[in-house]
């Protein structure tokens, strides 16, 4: 399943669906974000059909980052019904993302 590149144009629409959405906030200059990216990709693949995974480039979409008070990256936020229900800050093992989804 494709990872969605989220922008302020498609954000609300993508989060408006039935499935939960995991949003990964990142930037190109952020080393740990690069480390986290394959972990997020694997999580997306393993949980296809259960969750939509999207990425927000905080340099390109500062409004989205600001809207959810993202001050440190990488930050992963899980949304259910369009509302943030859980946040992870920093590089995390895949298991932590799965725990976020399960709870």
């Amino acid at each position, binding site marked *: 399943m494709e990872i969605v590149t989220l922008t302020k144009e498609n954000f609300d629409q993508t989060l408006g669906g039935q499935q939960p959405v995991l949003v990964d906030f990142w930037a190109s*200059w*952020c*080393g*740990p974000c*690069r*480390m*986290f990216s*394959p*972990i997020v990709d*694997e999580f997306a693949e393993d949980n296809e059909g259960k969750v939509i995974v999207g990425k927000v480039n905080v340099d390109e979409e500062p409004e989205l980052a600001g809207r959810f008070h993202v001050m*440190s990256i990488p930050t992963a936020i899980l949304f259910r019904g369009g509302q943030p229900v859980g946040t992870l800050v920093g*590089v995390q*093992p*895949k*298991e932590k993302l799965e725990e976020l989804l399960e709870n």
Partner: protein
Amino acid sequence: MTLFDVAVIGGGPGGYTAALYAARAGLSVLVLEKLSPGGQLATTDVIDNYPGFPEGVGGFELAMNMKGQAERFGVQSKSAEVLSCSLTGEVKELSTKKETFRARTVVLAMGAYPRELGLPGERELRGKGVSYCATCDGMFYRGKTVAVVGGGDTAAADALYLSRLCEKVYLIHRRDTLRASRSYLPLLEQAGNVEFLWNTQVEELLCEGALSGVRLKNSLSNETRELSCAGVFVAVGSVPATELVRGQVELDPAGYVPADETTRTSLPGVFAIGDLRKKPLRQVVTAVADGAVAVHFIEEYLNG
């Protein structure tokens, strides 16, 4: 349940090189990595001393290339932490949260993690001014004053990296010369905003909510002084990540595995490579060498 020929714990340069060589020798290989391929390599901005890269290479990029190369020859990788293991029998078992893997041989490639200063409040201030990874956290100190503690390659590289982001960098070392490779010194001097504090140790971390500075002591004059800084980057060496195998594999008093150049440990079919092995030089290039050599002895063990 699959019985792998080789299970590698740790997806750093050592682990993936052992995996590569094992796969090319026709063995079935599994690499178990808990976080990111590369380990310490992944958080290294630029590597200038790994041969073959005249312009240097990004640590994470190199790590991902090593992984890709190993996978090209059939190595399987799993993102999971090995929480417990049983290494003494003929069939070795490695258990993650979700499953147990079985293998005929195991390569210990868990590497090392940064040593703490051991000061009161240090753990509480992690992420609030105390950091062990300049490339990870440097951005948060853009335009601010920071201190790097240490005198080796990591401390020098960290100070150089931070000098490009921060207003000012103090490099605090307990000796009067760096242990680091000599090539760092001119670069640090040319940076213009790096000040060396020799014969100096950090006595106390000062904080008001978050870190506000450090109390320093000069070991020659016994004078103490307070230094204001927003961040302290600790680079005072590393600790081998061998707790997982303590009690099964023989460890030396510092926690390293006393395996020689053959990488053979006290347990048959278990091999130790990279930073966690007792050795004179811990670098990417020596970890990679260990990985290749381990496979020679893995084959000997499997055929024996």
